[in-house]
């Protein structure tokens, strides 16, 4: 039987992007919440809670980009020019917040600057990712293997809405992460922010979900045509379930349940988007089979991915396990 390598790779890339969204989501979220905590001690603990893992989290973004170039070069070559401005903004935001992890400890006089770099960079990166997502969902025109739209096509009310949605959603991941990883006053504050962020996320998911089907006839067909309409019913039910688990976990002082429930919300939202535009990789111009590199390329990298991705998951899991439990406020930086 001939393996559908393009399909397998679409699944792997989708997994990499999902891994990125939920992993870097919480550490960007910690950055987004940074200005809401004024004490230096609290900021130190917040940063220390993600410092050992943020770099690994962001590597999934490189895998998403590099993987796209390797296995769906046409998608890489059309999506990135189409999303030029948000991508550049995201990269610059990631630079500011990435260096802040080290720079912040290297100065006392300039510490406030790097606090702002961390917060501002995280917000810009999160918002730009949301805008990029919205611009992708609303469709990218392609002609002669090249992006055929204008330079401001990405900027629409819908993409701004998805930008805000991601910003609020990451804040939720960050808040529930802090509930799980910290103690005392800091955790209590994070718990209060988690309530507002949870409500905001739910509203944002609702707005985006109601808006999406009317962007493209394909989406409308997917959402309300059989058999995919089954998902249109199941997904909202599961979302409601996650939301209840989240609020319940926050109320009953459960430490890890709110975070896991927030991850659940992200997975469901992500699945909803994926269901909308499969099998397109550049909606609604290029399918995964149009964009796929030749089988020799797909097969060559697949061998590596099948061996290395489980290994990566194993040692990434180990790294998280080493730093498990609550962050010790007395533990300094390296």
């Amino acid at each position: 039987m001939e393996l559908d390598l393009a399909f397998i790779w679409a699944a792997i890339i989708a997994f990499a992007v999902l891994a990125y969204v939920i992993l870097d989501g919480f550490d960007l979220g910690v950055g987004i919440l940074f200005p809401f905590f004024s004490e230096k001690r609290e900021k130190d603990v917040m940063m220390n809670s993600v410092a050992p893992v943020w770099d690994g989290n962001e590597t999934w973004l490189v895998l998403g980009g590099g993987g796209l170039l390797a296995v769906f070069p046409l998608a890489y070559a059309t999506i990135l020019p189409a999303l030029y401005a948000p991508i550049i903004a995201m990269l610059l935001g990631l630079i500011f917040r990435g260096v802040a992890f080290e720079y912040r400890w290297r100065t006392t006089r300039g510490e406030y600057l790097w606090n702002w770099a961390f917060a501002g960079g995280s917000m810009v990166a999160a918002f730009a990712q949301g805008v990029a997502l919205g611009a992708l969902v609303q469709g990218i025109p392609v002609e002669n293997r090249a992006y055929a739209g204008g330079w401001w096509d990405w900027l629409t009310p819908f993409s701004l809405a998805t930008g805000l949605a991601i910003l609020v959603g990451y804040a939720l991941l960050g808040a529930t992460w802090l509930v799980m990883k910290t103690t005392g006053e800091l955790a209590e504050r994070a718990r209060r922010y988690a309530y507002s962020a949870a409500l905001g996320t739910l509203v944002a998911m609702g707005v985006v979900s109601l808006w999406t089907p009317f962007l493209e006839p394909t989406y409308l067909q997917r959402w309300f045509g059989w058999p995919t309409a089954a998902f249109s019913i199941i997904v909202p039910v599961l979302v409601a379930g996650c939301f209840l688990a989240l609020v319940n976990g926050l109320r009953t002082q459960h430490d890890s349940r709110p975070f896991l429930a927030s991850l659940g919300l992200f997975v469901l939202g992500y699945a909803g988007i994926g269901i909308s535009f499969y099998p397109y990789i550049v909606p609604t111009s290029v399918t995964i089979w149009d964009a796929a590199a030749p089988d020799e390329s797909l097969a060559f990298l697949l061998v590596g991915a099948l061996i290395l991705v489980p290994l990566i998951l194993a040692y990434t899991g180990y790294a998280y396990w080493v730093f498990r439990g609550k962050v010790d406020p007395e533990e300094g930086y390296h």
Partner: protein
Amino acid sequence: MFENFDATLLARFQFAFTVSFHIIFPAFSIGLASYLAVLEALWLRTKQDVYLELFDFWKTIFAVTFGMGVVSGIVMSYQFGTNWSVFSDKAGPVIGPLMGYEVLSAFFLEAGFLGVMLFGRNRVGPSLHFFATLMVAFGTLMSATWILAVNSWMQTPTGFAINEVGQFVPADWWAVIFNPSFPYRLVHMVLAAYLTTALVVGAVGALHLLRRTSPLRAGTMFSMAMWMLTLVAPIQIVAGDMHGLNTLEHQPVKVMAMEGHYESHSDGAPLILFGLPNPEEKRIDYAIEIPKLSSLILKHDRNAPLAGLDTVPEELHPPVPIVFWSFRVMILIGFSMLGLGVWSLYCRWRGTLYRNEWLHRVAIVMGPAGFVAVLAGWITTEVGRQPFTIYGHLLTADSVSPISAPAVGASLVAFIIVYFLIFGAGTFYLLRLMSRLPRDPMGDLDEGPIRTAGITPAPQATKHEGARHGT
């Protein structure tokens, strides 16, 4: 703004700018990761505190450097798509999987174990911690291997075919990866990274030897760095020569530009030491040359004929003055490294390695030279590849995205401002970290002048970071 600029030129400038900034950090972190692994191994073996103290000192510097390398590297992984989308579409099936392997086998490894290396010593114990350090060092080398395979394939492409939509597609992966220039470039670059690191470590050691506050720590790192320089600089010169001969075989036009040979020479070409390339008149003005030496170096025969740029259509010439100068800067620095290495060996033999203040001063001046040499070398090989992105097969002008000059120009300005701001601050912090070597503890001073007054006891000296960050 930028409406009157050429979008391709702006895109080239943007790539050159972002990649030049980026290469500085890996060039240092590849060498430093290996150095950290050596220091930790020495500590585990000998249990001498000085190695652990040096490890902690350089570990912090590594963390800052690595952070800058990560963020400037993420930019690179998207540069191909934003500004060079046609190249990405065409070359993606060949170079993409190699970069995919770089991410899977190197980036994740570095990132996964970096956290343990930086923060985890008290949590995992010495052996596992050493394992984490080894994985970080191994990851940096794996990363260099894959990305140099990509770059070398663009220089000397083999093992591919072209499909019906004009994409480069793999025909033989072995030939793609082990393309003719790859082994030479890999060796040359990894040695360059080690030399760059040795020069920085040597300069920091020399600085603190001159300050005389921590002679044991400063002396240990200075001695290690000078050994590295003494042993590796000559190997690098041989490796560079072999790389040059490989280039002559596969990219002769690049060598013509490096040598400044506008004209062909039928019986023995001269080696032009210095001169002013004059692209309009197609000659080197005020050339100082040694007759027949170029043929002797390149062909191992002083009378061998050597073709010049006059045998190549002008539209296929790389920009000669840039390549001519960058090549000479690299060579000059390479031989200066050899000189410093030999001098340090002489001082070591005379027993003045830790006392010769002129040696220390020169070592400090040479501290940043490795970075200059790395940049000059990359400029030589990349500009020398022009006007192609994939040598002989895809022109740079045909690789660029359908972008407009204002978009590229605006993002270029943004990158320039942000990079100078961010990496300027980073360099400042690095220099400050390097200048703050904790004093040697009392009792360990077995050489150099002993200054009893004001020596900080060991535990406080080594815990300086915790004290600063803690409460």
